């Protein structure tokens, strides 16, 4: 298929339709045809894009320019100037300063070409997420059909194992192996849970999948449930993701009506029921045992492990917990085969990874690239370089539990094993790219503050350790730190890593370790010289 040069979406919610969206769409068709560019441009009506103040909206990718409200008479200029000559028409753009956050999922396409080979984000931003038929037209539920009619549960698990897929929640555990554990576990009932409590700072990839392609998660959970023998499932969505919850509920309802969810699905004898469960604002609930506690209606405090959820999970039953991005890989793997998947990425980390790019770069947003790309490549190619006149200093990966990567590691392939070898972590896929004006003490302070606030308080190393680390870093930032503090910070990192009960505490010390390993001189300048080299820290304790 010839790749499209641009993709154009027209909003078609009720208000857009009342305001002439149909005419706008028709004019777009006519005008592109008149200029002979119709076959280079993909045009679609996409339902409710979640923004109603300036409808109808016309959204042009890859630039992610949003025009609105567009009158039928405006179409000619958009087509001639933007689509034909490549010049954005600023007068017709919708005011962008005030975002209705509901439009965030549309950033899925920003800065990338429609022809790019995507797996997880294949449909997000292209199809109408509120219309199951649009999903069906894009290979939707094809993998489920294949699984139910041609494969045994054991064959499904073998296929996932053979694909080499590893969990995308941060830890990188082999997905097929986890499925195997749950399949083998004994239990009166089994559950499949989708961890959609995406709260890692800087990470908004799952949101885009949930809001832009909700059926892909339902299909993946159905396949997982068939493979492990589960009959009920929960999607635990963070409380702040209201639109994602709405779209999932709509999608579940549609899937039930069409017979994809329910009892004896297509006469296969396999039954599966699915619920959406809203979080209420707690980062810790992304930890799988805390998440299970929260579904059960309790405080989200992690359980002691073992036993693991694979044998003793939700209401004590064997439970499979997978992250959104992991699940989104499942239908394509079963549709196209493990060999196809294995050929993408690196041998030990096959497939793609979705990254969110933020910070002092020219283009922020979302990309999906094969595992093993380097930071330098991401910055140069996808982020279109550092902002004018700025120099790359460090990148913070994977939100707060990720690593602080110094410039010296920017050519290390980004995959689970290469990063582990370099002593850093890939985390959840957030890439916060910082310039030379960023102070590592200030950054570490912010990161540690996050853990201080989000620690559930159940175990001592995490509850006290993060508070203490925050106090020490604040002292250093205020110019009243002591060199001995650095040793104490290292000890705190060790205690957090070795003694904490769950993943939150175990990774909370990472920023401390990275700062001490890679940026010690800069920290010491704060202490010895009472100077913040980047001019960020207040140094207030030292002024007089």
């Amino acid at each position, binding site marked *: 298929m010839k790749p499209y040069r641009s993709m154009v979406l027209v909003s078609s919610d009720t208000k857009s339709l009342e305001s002439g969206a149909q005419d706008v769409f028709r004019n777009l068709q006519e005008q592109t045809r008149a200029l002979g560019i119709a076959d280079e441009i993909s045009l679609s009506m996409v339902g409710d894009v979640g923004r109603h103040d300036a409808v109808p909206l016309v959204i042009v990718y890859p630039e992610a320019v949003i025009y609105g409200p567009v009158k039928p008479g405006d179409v000619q200029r958009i087509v001639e100037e933007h689509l034909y000559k490549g010049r954005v028409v600023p007068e017709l753009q919708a005011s962008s300063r005030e975002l209705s956050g509901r439009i965030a999922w549309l950033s899925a396409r920003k800065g990338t070409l429609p022809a790019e080979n995507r797996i997880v984000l294949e449909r997000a931003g292209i199809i109408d997420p509120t219309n199951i038929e649009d999903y069906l037209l894009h290979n939707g539920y094809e993998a489920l059909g294949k699984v139910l009619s041609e494969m045994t549960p054991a064959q499904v698990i073998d296929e996932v194992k053979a694909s080499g897929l590893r969990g995308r929640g941060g830890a990188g555990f082999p997905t097929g192996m986890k499925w195997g554990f749950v399949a083998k576990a004994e239990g009166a009932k089994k559950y499949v849970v989708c961890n959609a409590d995406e709260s890692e700072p800087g990470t908004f990839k799952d949101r885009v999948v949930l809001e832009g392609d909700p059926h892909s998660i339902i299909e993946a959970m159905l396949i997982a449930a068939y493979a492990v023998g589960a009959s009920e499932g929960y999607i635990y969505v963070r409380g702040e993701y209201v639109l994602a919850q709405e779209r999932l509920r709509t999608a579940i309802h549609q899937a039930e009506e069409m017979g994809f969810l329910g009892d004896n699905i297509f006469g296969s004898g396999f039954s599966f029921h699915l619920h959406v469960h809203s979080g209420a604002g707690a980062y810790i609930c992304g930890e799988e045992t805390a998440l299970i506690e929260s579904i059960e209606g309790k405080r989200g405090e992690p359980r002691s492990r073992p036993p693991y959820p694979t044998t003793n999970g939700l209401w004590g039953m064997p439970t499979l917990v997978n992250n959104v991005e992991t699940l989104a890989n499942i239908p394509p793997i079963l549709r196209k085969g493990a060999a196809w998947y294995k050929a993408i990425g690196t041998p030990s980390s096959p497939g793609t990874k979705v990254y969110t790019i933020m910070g002092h770069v020219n283009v922020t947003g979302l990309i999906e690239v094969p595992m093993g790309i380097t930071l330098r490549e991401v910055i140069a190619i996808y982020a279109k370089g550092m902002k004018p006149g700025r120099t790359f200093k460090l990148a913070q990966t994977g939100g707060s539990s990720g690593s602080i990567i110094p410039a010296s590691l920017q050519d290390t392939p980004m995959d689970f094993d290469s990063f582990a070898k370099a002593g850093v972590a890939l985390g959840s896929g957030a890439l916060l790219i910082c310039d030379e004006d960023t102070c590592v003490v200030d950054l570490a302070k912010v990161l540690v503050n*996050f853990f201080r606030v989000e620690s559930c308080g159940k175990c001592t190393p995490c509850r006290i350790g993060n508070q203490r680390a925050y106090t020490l870093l604040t002292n250093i930032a205020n110019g009243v730190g002591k060199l001995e503090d650095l040793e104490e910070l290292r000890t705190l990192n060790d205690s957090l890593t070795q003694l904490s009960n769950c993943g939150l505490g175990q990774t909370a010390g990472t920023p401390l370790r990275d700062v001490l390993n890679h940026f010690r001189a800069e920290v010491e300048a704060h202490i010895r010289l009472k100077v913040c080299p980047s001019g960020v820290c207040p140094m207030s304790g030292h002024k007089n």
Partner: protein
Amino acid sequence: MTMEADRHSRLLDAVQTAVEQFDSNPDELIPILNQVNRSFGYLPPEALEEVSKRLKMPQSRVHSVATFYQMLSTKPLGRHVIQFCESAPCHVVGGREVWQALQDELKISGGETTPDGKWSLITVSCLGVCGVGPVLIIDNEIFGNVTPQQIPDILARYN
């Protein structure tokens, strides 16, 4: 007196509606509290007591959940609640300065409510719209790419 009684009956109604919406299922405690919190603005002690009675659940358990989650509040808040993202991605692209501007403009610090009861200012962890940081939410509306200079204008839209 009548205002007090009116408030109390509205509160009981809010609890009843929420509990019935979830079939009085104790496993649904979090969505129930969420619902009451939304309709009443916060969770006063009487509401927690009523939830515990209706779900036949110890008050300690209801209280432990109500105080755990950030979206549930056991304290009354201002008419408008500003949630400011204090996570690293917003912080390094100018969030620090925006936070200072907010405090200067409202003359309160994080976690406080203005004396006239109009504004509450709270810090939150990542809101998941990091591509357009610094980000803040007022009630349900998200503002992205915020600069300190915009703060007075943004606040002036609310009365």
